């Protein structure tokens, strides 16, 4: 079991822990995120990255930041799970990429970029994955409407004579 004191002594006092229904959440700031994740992988055995996802807190009561990015980790040998949460804000939401630690982070971070607009520095190939390349907005943000902004009606059509 990773203890909060160990993490705080290694990475700083601002790390917080929370437990809810057998999920353990560790809240870190984006500055120490890469150090914490590399440390957890190298020294505490969290060899598998389960998921990377983001949450948009616009208009959520009591929210302090605009986005939270969540990393779900698993220790394959012991079965221990950990959830690392960090916060990013507009303008220019940026986080370090963890592709060097876990190869699966490649596509997971591309999806977070595609859906929320959060960039990952040092990512080998950060481009849209689910939406078309030329799509201009970030769909899963709360200020993007459910039915879109008319992109479907303005989709470029190539007719037989042009293409």
């Amino acid at each position, binding site marked *: 079991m990773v203890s909060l004191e160990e993490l705080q002594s290694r990475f700083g006092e601002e790390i917080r822990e929370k437990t809810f229904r057998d999920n353990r959440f560790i809240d870190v700031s984006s500055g120490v995120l890469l150090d914490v994740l590399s440390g957890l992988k190298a020294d505490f055995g969290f060899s598998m990255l389960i*998921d990377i996802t983001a949450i948009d807190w616009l208009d959520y009561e009591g929210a302090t930041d605009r986005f939270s990015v969540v990393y779900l980790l698993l220790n394959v040998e012991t079965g221990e799970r950990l959830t690392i949460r960090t916060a990013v804000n507009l303008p220019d939401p940026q986080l370090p990429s963890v592709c060097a630690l876990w190869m699966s982070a490649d*596509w997971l971070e591309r999806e977070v970029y595609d859906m929320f607009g959060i960039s990952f520095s040092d990512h080998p*190939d950060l481009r849209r994955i689910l939406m078309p390349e030329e799509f201009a907005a970030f769909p899963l943000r709360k200020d993007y409407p459910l039915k879109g902004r008319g992109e479907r009606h303005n989709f470029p059509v190539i007719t037989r004579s042009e293409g």
Partner: protein
Amino acid sequence: MSCGFIFVFFDTRPRSMPLTPVATHGSESKEREYVWTLNFGPQHPATHTTLRLVLTLDGEKVLQAVPYIGYLHSGFEKLGEHLDFNQYVTIADRMNYLSPLANEIAWHHSVEKLLGIELTPRCKYLRTILAELMRLHDHLLNLGTTALDLGGFTAFLYFFQQREHIYDIVELASGQRFHTSYTRVGGVLFDVNTDWVNRVRKFIQNFPPVYEEVNRLLTKNRIFVDRTQGIGYLSREDAINLSATGPVARASGVERDLRRDDPYLAYNELDFDVICSTGGDCYARYLVRMQEMLESLRILEQAIENIPSGPVNIDVDSDMVLPPKPSVYRSIEGLIQHFEMIMPNRSHDVPREEVYAATESPNGELGFYIVGNNESRAWRARTRPPSFIHFAMFPHMIRDHQLSDVVAVLGSLNIIAAELDR
């Protein structure tokens, strides 16, 4: 008039196909003129679903495979923020459409974890039985189509006949063959009766002979073995680093099965083995899935004989489930509770917390990360999609294989576009 032979020469030099310029494609230099590109396009029978691969080939050897996805993106996660927990199950249904009930069970497993609900024993056993039937359902289709893509049509048809029997069982329980939307918060839609139990028993009895026939057809079949053994090798370290879960990971030696490691539903009361292999290739994944079907049958035999009696939904007093219709029409409390459950802006007591819960779906670890906001719609409903993560492994696995192996490897990964794109 002289007769002569006319030789017509067809220019058979490979030509490169123009592609839209994308960051990962460098221009081909003079020395690599022999390299050509093939579009394994979104519409192709062997991909089973709409995904696109742009293969860079040297003759028949694959040098690079760049996947393009998003052809089936339908905004499922955005819909999760606008639909009720009981309405979203219709969307979760449509993700891994080979095993719809498995997705529903995973979704409500996460929702019930957020709400802190403990299911009744009868409901746990019922959901376990349905989850194992869905595991059979998924593996039957996956193995059938793997055989089909490699040319063995018979295995496909035999397995699909068994899937029809599972469709009948599910239809008897929920009224729908396919996208059942059968689970609800705190229970299931309808209870089952002895007729259903007998039908499941009959299925359990009739399945092993068919399994044996297809096993004899494929497992030691020279052609099948040649086309799948040594193909698409995934080492244990790579499987962990690339976040493989489910049969794909277990075939590479990662001994993880959520049914045993984090038991949920009735799995801690049932006896079963976790099937692993060290082979790591397509043949090992085939063997793991075949044996998993037998283990599912074993779980089904135990569970179907031991279904506890009692209510299938949790108690009406918890304010999480709909009251029975007679009490809605005849008592004011029932009417009020029905109103509170159905009308928007009135709902369960949902804590303003985040939770992640996963189940062992046939494809791997299917989990939902749900953020609650004290209303019966999630603030964020993220699916952890096993197909998405497995498809990201594909370029790594296909390097230096032949073009015909693309189909074998793609089939063994069990990529479902609806779960891939959501």
